[in-house]
């Protein structure tokens, strides 16, 4: 289920699409090269616009913490299950051990694993919120992500809270925890099915990238599925598909717009409108 392309897998090398670069005569780190339009844009201005390019509206990476700040009312977030920590049940090692990888990812991102969960307010509406962060091993789902999401969904079921999950997971189910990661897909989906039976409202927000086992579980199960513009969303990685069928992939394949066109997404939302539109949907659904 980890369908990410080899070139984008080393989380160390790719985590932040917001890569500062040097411009002649300007101190390093003040300018960004936009992958959307190629222009050099002033980093401060991008940050003020929620990490969106002022020239072309390209949506840059945002960390889970920034995302929470963008969506929730200030100071309302109460994290849950931060005390769950990843283990290394397979004693997995590729060219590097998973145990080492976890330590360095935690140090680099300041996260304990790829999902942050908790409760808070969206324009004064109480919600259960989860956000995955693509900087932490590609935002992939192992046991901790699966358990945090499941506990959050169970909490939302008990407390009758609307549930928002914002996905940024290019890595799908995390290879380093093997079959246990795959099973998290079933565990989280089962929790969502029970939440659904209890009448809970689930809004799934897909951001760049949402692939593999994350796309093929909770991310696709929203009563409402929203996406940011031009996010990469799909089941199989583009390279895997290309290698299988041996032809070039069509322009815009596996983007938010492609999925909207094929009927799998309800709305594409600019980042600046996300909070307001979540609140609006909650009001329509009577929660």
């Amino acid at each position, binding site marked *: *289920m*980890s*369908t*990410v392309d*080899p070139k984008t*897998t080393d989380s160390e090398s790719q985590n932040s699409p917001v890569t500062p670069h040097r411009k002649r005569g300007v101190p390093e780190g003040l300018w960004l090269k936009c992958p959307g339009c190629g222009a050099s844009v002033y980093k401060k201005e991008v940050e003020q616009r929620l990490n969106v390019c002022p020239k072309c509206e390209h949506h840059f990476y945002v960390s889970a913490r920034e995302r929470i700040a963008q969506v929730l009312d200030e100071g309302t977030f109460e994290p849950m299950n931060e*005390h*769950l*920590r*990843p*283990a290394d*049940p*397979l004693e*997995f*090692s*590729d*060219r590097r051990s998973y145990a080492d990888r976890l330590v360095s990812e935690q140090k680099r991102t300041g996260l304990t694993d790829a999902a942050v969960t908790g409760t808070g307010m969206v324009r004064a509406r109480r919600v259960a919120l989860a956000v995955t962060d693509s900087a932490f091993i590609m935002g992939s789902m192992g*046991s*901790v992500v*699966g*358990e945090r999401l499941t506990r959050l969904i169970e909490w939302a079921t008990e407390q009758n809270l609307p549930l928002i999950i914002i996905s940024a997971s290019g890595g799908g*189910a*995390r*290879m380093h*925890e*093997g*079959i*246990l990661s*795959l*099973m*998290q*897909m*079933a*565990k989280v*989906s*089962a*929790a969502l*099915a*029970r939440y*659904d*039976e209890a009448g809970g409202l689930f809004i799934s927000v897909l951001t760049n990238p949402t692939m*593999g*086992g994350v*796309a*093929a*579980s909770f991310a*696709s*199960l929203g009563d409402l599925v929203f996406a940011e513009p031009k996010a990469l969303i*799909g*089941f*199989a990685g583009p390279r*895997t*598909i290309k290698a*299988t*069928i041996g032809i070039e992939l*069509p322009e815009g394949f596996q983007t938010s717009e*492609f999925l909207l066109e*094929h*009927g*799998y997404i309800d709305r594409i939302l600019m980042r600046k409108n996300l909070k307001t539109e979540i609140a609006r949907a909650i009001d329509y659904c009577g929660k």
Partner: protein
Amino acid sequence: MSAGPGLEFENDIADLENRIGSLERQTDRSGDIENEIRTLRLELVRQLRETYSSLDAWQTVQVARHKNRPYTRDYLNLAFDDFVELHGDKHFGDDRAMLSGFAKLDRFKVLVLGHQKGRTYKERAACHFGCAHPEGYRKAMSKMRLAEKYQLPLICFIDTPGAYPGIGAEERGQAQVIAESMFKMSRLRTPVICVVIGEGGSGGALGIGVGDRVAVLQHAYYSVISPEGCAGILWKSHEHAPKAAAALRFTSQDLSRLGVVDDVLQEPLGGAHRDHHQMASRLKSYLSRTLGELEVKTADELVAERYEKFRKIGVFIEESQTEV
């Protein structure tokens, strides 16, 4: 049944099988020849026992993918008394990689779902080598509804390298159908038994894998990603697939230890591909016994216990919350 096209690690075994075969074909067998056959047979059994009691992960993958390994349709022929194939995803088309229909097993009327790989090249191409498209999962979901409505236990045979990666598959919602199928299965108000008979390839396998009981054949495997895919990503080369296979811990023993499967079904000596009949008969008695255990449960009990079964899976550290 002979093992057919050989596996590399079975060269000595294949050699023995050939020698026994050619001796047996002699019309006029002297006592010496009979003795020779007996000796070779004993040696064959010894070697099969030795090799198959200690297959490594990569060898297991080879056995699970063996071209003569019994597929869903073979089990339908050998273990079931009747089979009424039902096509129809009621949406787009008929996916040959997903078989479904009514069947009888002992005294039970059941609904069977299963990946199908195909035996001849033509069949294999028509089945996309066991890789289902979204229409396969939609077909599966339509049969799940039928099973629930008419209180037929559902039996799912898992045998796929993975869900199909292609343009049409993405256009028609591969990710969404797999998610929806797990979602539905988790609440299905009828008994569900899943058996990994060969390859349990990631989401494509799990899409029909949420059951009250999940069993795996001794030499089958069940993995988050194919060993080749994992090697390509983490070792940057498919050639490291044997290393990835070992690292992923996906053999029946591992799955049992990790709490992912409830039961491991022992295969005949030398693997299921050597004796379809014996494997089918073991599978049949397992299914019959398990159906008997599940039929006494109410739908509420089934759904609640199925939830708990998957709820428990995962390994993590729970730090004391009082610590700072």
